[in-house]
């Protein structure tokens, strides 16, 4: 009875804490500017099914795709087991679903195989990150916390899977010994090999089985609450993020409606704009970005596929699309914390541009869309870069000198170079 109460309290506390943090993140995302991503629900649903559920953009790199698939499918399916653990924990039952008979054996057997593949995949991931030193996992933005974050996640998953397998091994051994309470149920294709290394005494086995059970469920609840602080949040946000992703051609940049009003008024003095929205052009801080940009930042799992295909980054420039996303998340998190501590009106004098992302970074972008194409969850770093450029150019008139010269040429000669408009058709005179 005491155990059941402890279980209930822990579960409720974990869910409550997670809800509080999730709501904060959703509030932070809502600090972003509105953008309509409610159109074409059918196409959006298909995009989500294909890209998030179907992992379609992962296959470009087969080795990590293969390993990631095991971890993903393991995560999704082993969660069915969590349902049983929840019911057992609350009602003091043991393996409540064993009534399913053959199906139960099949399920437990599948979970074991999946747990094993998750274990192996995570171990290989650790090797890739820490021993093989794959270039994608390094870079200036991958020092300290982001580097540890990845390792913590992998180690936690290995520990959770180990606990699950040892719990089953002890259980199986207790079933063989005919220990009371341990009904004969389940199939143990993996943990049967662990039975021999466990002690023979019944009390020790019960101790191991219970410890692993508690470790497994507390681990899952703790992991749930780790997510909002971690890059691992993508396991939840990959779905809304792909659903609300851009469906237009990647080459198309938004036309700013506020600018359209001003330009129309300039060209036609009789034009009266329907609704003038005040505010700045482009983005200086995260709250000038759209909510989709901010959701993108929370979704990013820092895999670095974007940066590894970025022509600027490949050739040694400072720009890294992954860093753009990480900076955006760090800054919106900071803005959110300011609101929690000092209220909504508080200004800390910092901004995304300059305090997090430098001018050198935003001007190194070729807008080639390679980062957008590479992202397995449809994150768009390019849009953030463009919004920062818009602010630098339209609000501050701060662009590299040669860019200003180019803009001046368009204004004066209707071409980015200093040629006379009268000469535009001269090409037809030559052969």
């Amino acid at each position, binding site marked *: 009875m005491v155990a059941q109460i402890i279980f209930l309290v822990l579960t409720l506390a974990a869910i409550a804490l997670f809800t509080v943090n999730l709501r904060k993140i959703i509030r932070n995302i809502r600090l972003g500017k509105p953008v309509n991503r409610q159109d074409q629900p059918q196409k959006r649903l298909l995009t989500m099914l294909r890209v998030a559920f179907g992992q379609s953009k992962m296959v470009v790199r087969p080795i990590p795709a293969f390993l990631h698939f095991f971890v993903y499918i393991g995560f999704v399916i082993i969660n069915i087991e969590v349902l049983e653990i929840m019911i057992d924990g609350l009602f003091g039952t043991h393996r409540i679903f064993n009534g399913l008979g053959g199906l139960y054996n099949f399920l437990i057997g599948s979970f074991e195989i999946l747990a094993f593949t998750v274990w192996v995949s995570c171990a290989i991931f650790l090797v890739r990150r820490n021993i093989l030193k794959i270039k994608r996992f390094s870079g200036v933005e991958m020092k300290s916390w982001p580097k540890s974050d990845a390792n913590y996640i992998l180690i936690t998953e290995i520990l959770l899977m180990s606990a699950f397998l040892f719990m089953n091994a002890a259980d199986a051994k207790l079933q063989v010994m005919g220990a009371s309470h341990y009904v004969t149920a389940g199939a143990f294709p993996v943990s049967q090999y662990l039975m021999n290394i466990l002690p023979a005494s019944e009390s020790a086995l019960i101790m191991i089985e219970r410890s692993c059970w508690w470790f497994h469920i507390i681990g899952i609840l703790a992991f749930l609450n780790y997510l909002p602080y971690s890059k691992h949040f993508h396991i939840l946000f990959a779905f809304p993020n792909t659903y609300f992703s851009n469906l237009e051609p990647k080459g198309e940049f938004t036309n700013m409606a506020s600018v359209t009003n001003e330009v129309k008024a300039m*060209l036609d003095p009789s034009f009266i704009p329907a609704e003038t929205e005040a505010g700045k*052009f482009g983005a200086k801080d995260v709250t000038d970005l759209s909510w989709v940009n901010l959701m993108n930042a929370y979704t990013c799992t820092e895999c670095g596929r974007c940066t590894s295909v970025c022509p600027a980054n490949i050739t040694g420039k400072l720009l890294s699309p992954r860093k753009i996303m990480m900076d955006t998340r760090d800054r919106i998190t900071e803005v959110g914390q300011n609101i929690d501590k000092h209220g909504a009106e508080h200004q800390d004098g910092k901004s995304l541009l300059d305090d997090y992302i430098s001018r050198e970074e935003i001007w190194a972008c*070729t807008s080639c869309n*390679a980062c957008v194409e590479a992202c397995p969850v449809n994150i768009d770093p390019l849009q953030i870069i463009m919004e920062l450029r818009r602010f630098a150019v339209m609000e501050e008139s701060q662009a*590299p000198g040669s860019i200003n010269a*180019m803009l001046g040429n368009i204004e004066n000669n209707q071409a980015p170079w200093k040629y006379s408009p009268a000469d535009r058709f001269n*090409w*037809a005179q030559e052969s």
Partner: protein
Amino acid sequence: MEFKVPTMAELMAAGEEPEILFWVGCAGSYDERAQKITRDICKILHHVGIKYAVLGTEESCTGDPAKRAGNEFLFQMQAMANIEVLNAYNVKKIVTGCPHCFNTIKNEYPGLGGAYEVIHHTQLIQDLINEGKLKAEGGESFKGKKITYHDPCYLGRGNGIYEAPRKALEVLDAQLVEMKRCKSNGLCCGAGGAQMFKEPEKGNKDINVERIDEALEIGPQVIAAGCPFCMTMLSDGVKLKDKEQEVKVLDIAEITARANGL
């Protein structure tokens, strides 16, 4: 040129409308290398007998470099002025000689009141080949030559057009070889996003050199391009590597014109 390039103004004065407007673009108008491509596109149009016209001195920058540089004001000023001209001429269909003009007019003009059917010149060439109006005969033979195609970002990733330029090359009976980074994984030439008009940021290599190194690895005789900016970047790269004699950088339009002896 051996024939006169018709302008919209002339056609309108004669009470006529062309089937298609050829949007030349700033590079195609002023850049010496790109002018050759412009003339070749005209030669192809003339050769197949499509009724076309250009805007001539009435054409103006689409505003693309201003938009990518972050100056939305200047972009929209340019766009609205252009749309006014295009709508006044009742333009329905446009072919562009540049992926940047193509992307801007096709995707960003409709929201500002300019809706047209827009194609890139490689798509036009593909259509003409499919319709049997264009072949690869009567001119230079590319048979067996090793050709690699560099995807322009605003044609490829930007608008998903990977097949048209390759179809245009397939008729040559040449040996088409892909670079390691091609199609949706293609590497930028380094000119996009207004980079064409500025010095690159500090790094350890120029992007066009990275791209040319990759292209030269497969030992092509021709690097095919579909964008005047890529043309500049790739040609510079080949020049820098001192490979101008062995490797030619040619636009798909130039290759088509040569293959047909135009």
